[in-house]
């Protein structure tokens, strides 16, 4: 064809040259139309000629070619076979030719050497010998497959076994073909793919490792092409989001799983990433279908693909465990702080060179009495340390430097602003810093104020206990004259007399019963019967008193107390107790009883004396109702004597007579009570009642002496315990004294005031105040003495008796001087406390 074009071009140019030759220069403008048909005809003719020439040349070349081919074909065939053989032999591929039964017909040398055989060792043998035992069935199958459809090639990968037993991976390409003699052979080309297989395995392994790593680290990876919207998730990503790996991942899925509270934030992050096409990183929670919550941390890089699109590649990590751990940590930190606070233990770390705290827990500040929220300087902290303890504290960091390490325990005191002292026990040890030096001291401050106080209390309690033990031993010895022990049969088994009283009892009491020692069993059988019953019941007894004789024969009184004692099994072993010689006490009691009796008699005498002094008043007190009775009687007769007897008036008169008679007998009863020599009878009384009774007796005396009486009696006074008559006597005495003291008074109203009240100590207080002559200082001291009197008549025993009566009642009598003229006699009696039995 090329030649055609070339010749055509040549023709055209030759014609053009011819035409140029024949024609005058016309500036190549075909404006001479009469030349155009000539040129055109020439052109067509030359083209046709060119074509014909080309046709002839091609036909000739073809003929020549065919002749040459025919010549070459014989040599060529020979050459080709040789070359194929060459290829067959030296091809880096192993070729096997096997028949349908698997017998090797031919093998190239590579194939044989690869397997460690020479071709002759393989040809004529079954090909199966180079396969692993377990693969031989498969090989047979493959052969059959190939022979079924001739010409169809099959490929498989299989292991072959070398002569030396080693294994190599091959890929076999087999195809059955029929040879000229119609024999069916299978051509097998084997390629050694051991390396590739190894790479493949390594790849697979690394993929598996990656998957495993993702699984273990709970990190899934993802890819997201913004342009196509295509999303790729790793297996772990599916697992994290808990989607079926078959699901087609989309950003929507992420949002679906996102915790509702975080959804907006996630959406925002994704939107922003899409908009700005930048890296993003965020944490959010998932709310999974089963209701559980997962914390995720996702990181993505925006990358540009070759096509210029943005693609996000990232990793999403399940940080739930980390989050929980973090929470756990935070909680345990809080617990620690709380524990420090509760145990009053603060921890700290001190830089020994820079002389400052590296760290100190809030509790340290609190221990020093500072608010942990406020910054505190070292100096301020130091100022709170007890000055005596400060050197010891400051010595510790120095020792760390000197001794290069060490463990320290020391106590010191903190002076709190309110003046209290807090005791701290500190434990510290030096730690090695990164540069290998001991520069830091780590320790704890523990508040041991309570423990310290407790220890002090304990020590004090122990000391007290020791002291009290000694005291009780002393008591037992001083409070008793001897200690005794009796056996189960109540006979004395042990007897220890203290030295001070040695020898009171007759010797040889051991082995005797108590009733054999005593000398009053016959005199007081009931007392002893009761005592015997107590012993038989094995009950403790206290203050049992009996009479016995000393070794010198004199009679003594013994007071004894005892308690039963038992062995570990609860068997009764006897009694233990103490006894005391109480003869002096008994004698004193008897003497006191005598004294009381004498006092009571004296009180009676003075009472009668007082009554004697009041005779006029008393007579009046009796005359008054008697006169009234007479008048009413007369009146009654008068009412009855009327022409029409007035019965209702008469009845009324008789009623008044009865009333007046009762009044008269009441007066007589009171006077008799005062005059009577009766036993002292202690009963609960209201002092105001007694005052009223006294007033009834002395009213006439007051009137006749022109004395006005004022009473200021406190309501609801507590009861006192006393003898009615004796207390009446005291008050009468005080009132009569007051009246008498006012006799000389002419210039002012004579007023007597009786006040009752409860004093600040809770006792019942009664005061009789007159505005009489008063008492001079000297007399005030002597006024209570017996036989002291300022009167011409009288024994001078009144106040003395009053005082002893009140003292017998547990009270006291005293004089108080008035602001105004006169004197106040007052007494206080203890409140009667109801005995709870």
């Amino acid at each position: 064809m090329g030649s055609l074009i070339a010749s055509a071009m040549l023709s055209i140019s030759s014609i053009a040259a011819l035409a140029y030759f024949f024609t005058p220069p016309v500036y190549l403008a075909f404006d001479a139309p009469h030349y155009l048909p000539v040129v055109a005809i020439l052109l067509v003719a030359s083209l046709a000629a060119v074509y014909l020439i080309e046709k002839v040349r091609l036909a000739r070349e073809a003929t020549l070619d065919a002749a040459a081919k025919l010549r070459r074909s014989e040599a060529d065939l020979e050459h080709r076979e040789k070359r194929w053989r060459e290829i067959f032999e030296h091809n880096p591929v192993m070729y096997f030719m096997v028949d349908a039964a698997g017998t090797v017909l031919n093998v190239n040398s590579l194939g044989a050497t690869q397997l460690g055989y020479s071709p002759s060792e393989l040809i004529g043998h079954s090909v199966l010998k180079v396969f692993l035992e377990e693969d031989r069935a498969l090989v047979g199958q493959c052969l059959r497959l190939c022979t079924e459809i001739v010409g169809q090639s099959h490929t498989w990968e299989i292991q072959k076994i070398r002569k030396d037993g080693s294994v190599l991976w091959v890929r076999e390409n087999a195809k059955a073909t029929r040879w000229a003699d119609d024999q069916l052979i299978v051509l097998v080309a084997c390629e050694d793919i051991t390396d590739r297989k190894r790479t493949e395995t390594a790849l697979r392994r690394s993929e598996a490792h990656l998957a495993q790593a993702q699984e273990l680290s709970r990190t899934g990876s993802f890819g997201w092409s913004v342009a196509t919207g295509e999303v790729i998730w790793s297996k772990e990503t599916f697992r994290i989001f808990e989607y079926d790996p078959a699901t087609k991942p989309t950003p929507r899925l992420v949002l679906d799983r996102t915790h509702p509270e975080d959804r907006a934030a996630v959406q925002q992050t994704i939107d922003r990433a899409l908009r700005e096409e930048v890296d993003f990183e965020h944490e959010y929670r998932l709310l999974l279908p089963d209701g559980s919550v997962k914390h995720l941390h996702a990181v993505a890089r925006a990358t540009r693909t070759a096509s210029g699109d943005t693609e996000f590649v990232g990793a999403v990590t399940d940080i739930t465990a980390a989050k929980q751990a973090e929470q756990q940590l935070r909680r345990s930190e809080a617990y620690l702080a709380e524990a420090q606070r509760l145990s009053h233990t603060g921890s700290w770390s001190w830089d020994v060179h820079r002389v400052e705290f590296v760290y100190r827990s809030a509790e340290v500040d609190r221990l020093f009495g500072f608010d942990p929220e406020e910054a505190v300087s070292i100096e301020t902290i130091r100022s709170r340390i007890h000055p005596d303890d400060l050197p010891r504290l400051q010595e510790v960091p120095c020792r760390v430097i000197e001794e290069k390490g060490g463990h320290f325990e020391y106590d010191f005191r903190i002076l709190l602003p309110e003046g209290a002292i807090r005791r701290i026990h500190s434990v510290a040890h030096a730690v090695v810093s990164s540069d290998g030096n001991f520069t830091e001291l780590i320790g704890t401050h523990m508040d041991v104020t309570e423990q310290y106080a407790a220890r002090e209390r304990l020590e004090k309690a122990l000391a007290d206990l020791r002291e009290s033990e000694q005291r009780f031993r002393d008591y037992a010895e001083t409070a008793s004259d001897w200690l005794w022990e009796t056996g189960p049969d109540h006979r004395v088994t042990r007897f220890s007399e203290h030295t001070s009283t040695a020898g009171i009892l007759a010797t040889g009491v051991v082995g005797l019963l108590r009733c054999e020692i005593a000398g009053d069993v016959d005199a007081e059988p009931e007392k002893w019967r009761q005592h015997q019953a107590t012993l038989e019941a094995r009950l403790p007894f206290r203050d049992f008193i009996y009479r016995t004789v000393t070794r010198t024969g004199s009679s003594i009184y013994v007071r004894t107390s005892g308690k039963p004692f038992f062995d570990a099994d609860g068997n009764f072993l006897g009694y233990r107790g103490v006894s005391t010689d109480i003869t002096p006490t008994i004698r004193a009691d008897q003497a006191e009883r005598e004294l009381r009796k004498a006092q009571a008699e004296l009180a009676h005498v003075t009472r009668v004396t007082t009554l004697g002094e009041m005779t006029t008043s008393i007579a009046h007190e009796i005359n008054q109702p008697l006169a009234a009775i007479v008048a009413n009687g007369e009146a009654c007769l008068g009412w009855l004597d009327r022409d029409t007897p007035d019965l209702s008036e008469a009845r009324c008169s008789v009623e008044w007579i009865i009333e007046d008679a009762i009044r008269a007998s009441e007066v007589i009863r009171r006077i008799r009570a005062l005059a009577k020599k009766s036993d002292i009878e202690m009963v609960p009384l209201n002092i105001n009642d007694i005052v009223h009774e006294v007033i009834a007796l002395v009213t006439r005396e007051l009137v006749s002496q022109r004395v006005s009486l004022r009473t200021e009696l406190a309501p609801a006074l507590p009861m006192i315990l006393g003898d009615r008559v004796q207390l009446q006597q005291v008050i009468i005495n005080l009132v009569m004294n007051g009246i008498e003291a006012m006799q000389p008074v002419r210039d002012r109203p004579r007023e007597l005031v009786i006040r009752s009240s409860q004093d600040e100590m809770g006792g019942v207080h009664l005061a009789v105040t007159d505005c009489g002559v008063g008492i001079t200082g000297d007399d005030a001291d002597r006024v209570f003495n017996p036989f002291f009197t300022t009167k011409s008549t009288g024994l001078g025993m009144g106040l003395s008796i009053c005082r002893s009566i009140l003292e017998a009642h547990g009270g006291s009598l005293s004089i108080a001087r008035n602001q105004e003229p006169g004197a106040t006699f007052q007494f206080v009696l203890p409140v009667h406390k109801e005995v709870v039995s």
Partner: protein
Amino acid sequence: MTGRSQSSRRGPQAEKPAGSALVFVIDDDVSMRRSLANLFRSVGLDVIAFGSAQEMLQASLPDVASCLVLDVRLPGLSGLELQTELAKLNLRIPIIFITGHGDIPMTVKAMKGGAVDFLTKPFRDQELLDAVVAATERDRKRREVEKAVASLQSSFETLSPREQAVMKLVTAGLMNKQIAAELGLAEITIKIYRGQVMKKMGARSLADLIRMAEPLGIRPNRPEQA
């Protein structure tokens, strides 16, 4: 006292004055006060009882014949002091003192002060009743006299000065002529004045007029009476 006869008991009742009589009782003792009041009421006397002298002084007392039964010893103002007080107030109530323990000086003092009686307890009730009746009677009489004098006085005051002068001279026993000379008037004029005096004074006769002149204190003018 129980042995007293009925007749003697009736005595006071029988003697009961026609006009109302009032007894004041002062005693600080309630039953005593009550029994005395009862006794007086039983014989038909009106009674007003007080617990103290002050109570009586504060009370408005009815203007009737009365007497006062008073205990000498009283809280506050005593019986004797009350007597003085009443005298100051010109209340001339007859007083009967009763006392549980009378002594001579006190009795004397009481009597000097105008007490009508002084009874010492225990006294017989009849004694007291008698004393009360006597005292009220005396008071009544005193009052009647005072009342009559007051009436004469008011009549006397209705007379003109000339008439009073005439009456003084007439009751002095002078004759009309002597009076006319004394006053420098005509005898006939004196006669007219005398008639007027007789009429105004309600005198029926000269003797009547002379009796009237005495309580009016006109008589002392007579030298014979002085």
